[in-house]
């Protein structure tokens, strides 16, 4: 069952362009030059209940704009969206009881007060029954292990401690969908892992649908089973996280331990990455050469003691997607200037 359906969702921002200098200021006052930026261009997708979706793309790709339309903050220029059967920008308040959001770079906790106070306030805002609230709070405090700093002013918490409180705060009202915008930004490796475990736990134990944006390849790989890649306002990939590798991966690395000394290897599409003694690392461009043919050739030339074939890390796959030149697609920033009389 689809919990989110998006159809041809489009957002065009109109901005006033200002020429530099005082003359430019005057000109923009009397004869403003408007330019239109298509931040999201007619995207269509649907998400099933209980999915864990990673929404990835470089800065300015349209990720946040999409999230903000789905939670009802922004009105789209065109297109439809249904979140839990509601049109977000028309039924924002009713929807807000059923969705939660975590914005990694912002805070919803009161800075000078302990998290417990912010939790109490949220319980009031979401009209939770006192008993149900206490029960839910106890549950979240246990899962997120925030007991020790429940009564410490937020300003004194570390980023990792605060982030756990932020996520717990977003879950008090038992949302069915959790939107996470860069939840692990700025956290160290151990804390990142802890946050990922918690999000995974929520999805598995409570069936919360996870909609995550991240720049962290680890978040995508560990947390999500489905990935959607957005760039220049359009969805350029939608499928399994594992398939993402196959789609974008055009190289594999072969690590060998040889039984005989290295004498070089000539093969179209294969390049030497590293060689030290009997250890060799090769990169294969799978568009040019198949792994099978490379292996066959290697086995005919060398005695091989040990072999490993690896995919490059998620990190480089994402980097590869971002680096893809938009030549084949029309750029999103089509600054068609419209002089307004």
């Amino acid at each position, binding site marked *: 069952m689809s919990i989110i359906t998006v159809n041809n969702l489009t957002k065009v*921002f109109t901005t006033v362009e200002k020429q530099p200098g005082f003359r430019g200021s005057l000109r923009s006052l009397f004869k403003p030059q408007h330019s239109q930026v298509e931040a999201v261009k007619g995207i269509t997708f649907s998400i099933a209940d209980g999915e864990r979706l990673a929404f990835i793309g470089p800065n300015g790709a349209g990720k*946040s704009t999409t999230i*903000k339309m789905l939670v009802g903050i922004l*009105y789209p220029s065109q297109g439809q969206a249904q979140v839990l059967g509601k049109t977000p920008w028309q039924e924002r308040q009713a929807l807000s009881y059923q969705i939660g959001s975590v914005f990694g770079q912002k*805070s919803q906790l009161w800075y000078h007060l302990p998290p417990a106070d912010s939790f109490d*306030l949220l319980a*009031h*805002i979401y*009209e939770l029954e006192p008993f149900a609230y206490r029960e839910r709070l106890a549950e979240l405090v246990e899962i997120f292990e925030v007991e020790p700093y429940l009564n410490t002013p937020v300003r004194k918490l570390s980023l990792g401690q605060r982030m756990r409180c932020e996520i717990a705060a977003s879950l008090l009202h038992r949302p069915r969908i959790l939107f996470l915008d860069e939840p692990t930004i700025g956290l160290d490796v151990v804390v990142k892992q802890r946050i990922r475990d918690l999000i995974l736990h929520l999805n598995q134990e409570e069936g919360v649908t996870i909609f995550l944006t991240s720049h962290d390849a680890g978040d995508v790989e560990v947390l999500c089973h489905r990935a959607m890649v957005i760039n220049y306002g359009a969805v350029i990939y939608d499928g399994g996280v594992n398939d993402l590798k196959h789609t974008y991966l055009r190289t594999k690395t072969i690590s060998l331990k040889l039984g005989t000394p290295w004498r070089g290897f000539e093969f179209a599409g294969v390049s030497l990455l590293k060689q030290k003694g009997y250890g060799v690392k090769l990169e294969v461009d799978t568009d040019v050469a198949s792994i099978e043919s490379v292996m066959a050739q290697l086995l005919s030339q060398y005695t091989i003691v040990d072999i490993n074939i690896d995919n490059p890390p998620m990190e480089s796959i994402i980097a590869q997607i971002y680096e893809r030149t938009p030549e084949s697609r029309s750029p999103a920033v089509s600054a068609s200037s419209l002089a307004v009389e």
Partner: protein
Amino acid sequence: MSLLSRYWFVSRISARQQWAYRSEVLVRSVSTVLFMGIFVALWRTAFSVSQSTELSGYSLVDMLWYLAMTETVALSSSRAFQEISDAVKAGDLAYTLTRPMAYPFLQVANSLGSSAPRFLINLVTASAVVAVGVGLGAGSLGGALAFLVMAWLALLLDALIAVLIGMLAFWLEEVLPIYWIYQKLLFTVGGLFLPLEFFPGWLQRLSQWLPFRFITNAPARAFVAFSFAEVLPMVAGQLVYIGVLLAVVSLVWKIARRRLVLHGG
């Protein structure tokens, strides 16, 4: 009822957050002491030069207590305009907008809460300076009670205006100049520095009908010259303006939401 209790809770938590800045507010109250000290010296001189015991119906003691009360309200006034325009500029509305509450009224509740601790500190400081300068001798129990009620209504009215100014940030790049205009109107036709009775007849009549006097003049006037005949119409005026602004704020918010452009991705 539960709807109002949410706003009440927002006010409470906001007051507690503001309380964390109490030492900062205390330091700022040095300027209150300075202001009130200057007023004491100024009006002493004015009264002695004019050689009369009353000016436009105010004795020296009345005058200074009047000023202590207008200053108390003005110094505790809302900064919601700043908060809203900062949030609009920085794109920080993401969290507050996803709550099941109307954003502008959340800001009003927020503003009232953060005004409360400042109001208490300003009231104590300004009263102390005037009491030391010219003694007690003004006001009454009825006047004090009327002041407390009317000051609260005044701060609510002020918060609504501040939120309205803040929402202009959806159209304007900078709302501070608009706030300055509002502030100067409080100084003058709001009767902050001079009771309305000192104005020429036409200006007095005009000021009486403008919203600004209901913020600064009305509560202070109720304190120094309490009578039901005078206080009730002023409270009614406050309530009418609060009602009008509630409607205007809701309407402007409806329009603003549609043109909301969140900065920062």
